[in-house]
């Protein structure tokens, strides 16, 4: 994860950034313009709350980025690269983990017949996601994230299916959590095409476990990068 270094260059950027937001709050002209765009007083309250959050976060002694940005998904993906590159590399890391997981499950010999066929198919689809995301990062001019070394607990079929469902539900939520931050319409289209397949995988695994295919009801919930990365951390061994 992000090393705990205080990079002076980042710190400068941080200050400029904070001051720009402060200017936005203090300067009546730009503030008015901002609020007109934001559409009213609700935004004014949000801006105040947001600035307050920034202020309290500033005293944090953790990484330089988290000091400026409280619980921001975009912040957590920025460790993977700038803008869309960071988001795609974040997704790539998750897809690498899923691919490795299904590969291990197939090799474990815990499943046979139609269950094995389903697991194999899901694994192949994750592998296609890896290829597509790798190509997307390159097209954006970035360097694809490295394949993480992963290890998964594979004890018995039921616990493996449960883990698979957890991973897929989390993966679907992770894509949903990034959709609003993606800038390129093409990347957004690709992410959506993958997002719904993760949703299908999740629903199928939930159903196989006798659980609801739609645990969040009519509206799927997003997950931010911090939550997702924290959840997959136990499976990354290097």
């Amino acid at each position, binding site marked *: 994860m992000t090393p705990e270094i205080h990079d002076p260059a980042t710190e400068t950027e941080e200050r400029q950034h904070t001051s720009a937001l402060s200017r936005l709050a203090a300067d009546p002209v730009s503030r008015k313009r901002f609020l007109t765009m934001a559409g009213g007083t609700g935004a004014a309250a949000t801006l105040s709350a947001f600035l307050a959050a920034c202020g309290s976060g500033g005293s944090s002694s953790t990484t330089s980025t988290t000091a400026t940005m409280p619980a921001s998904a975009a912040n957590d993906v920025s460790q993977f690269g700038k803008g869309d590159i960071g988001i795609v590399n974040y997704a790539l890391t998750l897809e690498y983990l899923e691919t490795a997981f299904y590969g291990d499950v197939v090799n474990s010999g815990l499943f046979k017949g139609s269950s094995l066929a*389903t697991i194999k198919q899901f694994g192949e689809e994750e592998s296609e996601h890896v290829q597509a995301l790798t190509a997307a990062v390159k097209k954006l001019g970035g360097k694809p994230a490295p394949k993480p070394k992963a290890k998964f607990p594979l004890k018995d079929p039921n616990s493996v299916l449960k883990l698979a469902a957890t991973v897929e539900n989390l993966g679907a939520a992770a894509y949903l959590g990034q959709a*609003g931050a993606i800038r390129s319409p093409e990347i957004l289209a690709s992410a959506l095409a993958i997002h719904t397949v993760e949703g299908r995988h999740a629903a199928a695994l939930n159903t196989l476990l006798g659980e609801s295919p739609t645990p969040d009801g009519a*509206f799927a919930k997003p997950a931010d990068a911090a939550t997702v990365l924290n959840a997959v951390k136990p499976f990354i061994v290097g």
Partner: protein
Amino acid sequence: MNSTESQSPELAEVEVHGTSRGAFILRGALAAGALYGLGSVTPFVGQALAKSSGGDIDILNFALTLEYLEAAFYKEAQQQVKLSSDTKALAKLIQGHEDEHVAALTMAIKGAGGKPVTAPGVSFPFSDESGFLKLAQTFEDTGVSAYNGAAPAIKSVDVLASAGAIVQVEARHAAAIRLMAGESPAPDAFDKSLEKDAVLKAVQPFIKS
């Protein structure tokens, strides 16, 4: 089923997307500022906060038509066809979701200053469980492709977030229906996206008015 009560918690959640729009946008703006330098923040915020244009309202109304169609389909299936108890339970679950989607989209359209379309007249050619599953699969797969095709054109970040929350559920429906029909829940690594015209062509046979 008390529809008002069962719908309100989910509707409240959709409202959260709307009321927290400022936070959502600011988060994106902040990231853009940090990553691209401050010059990029203002145009990004301006673009993201642009009021839902006719474009977004059109997309929402298009989605609303599809959700109306799906809701009517599942309702009819429960009333007019003999379904196994598992299939019936799934049809009921999905119908509840489609009703909630209808309510949420209607609210979003009104919130954006638009006029929601009315429910279309419908007719569905099925008479048994397998016919139901086949049509359901078509509707859900088409629904996924319709949302995925329309989403990149959505201008408002909160409309996009809501569409994303809905399309994932449509995909989950598609997978559950496909499993019930003995089909692969996720036949492709990438869900196709469909243009509006192709979607309308696909659902045209079921719309009477």
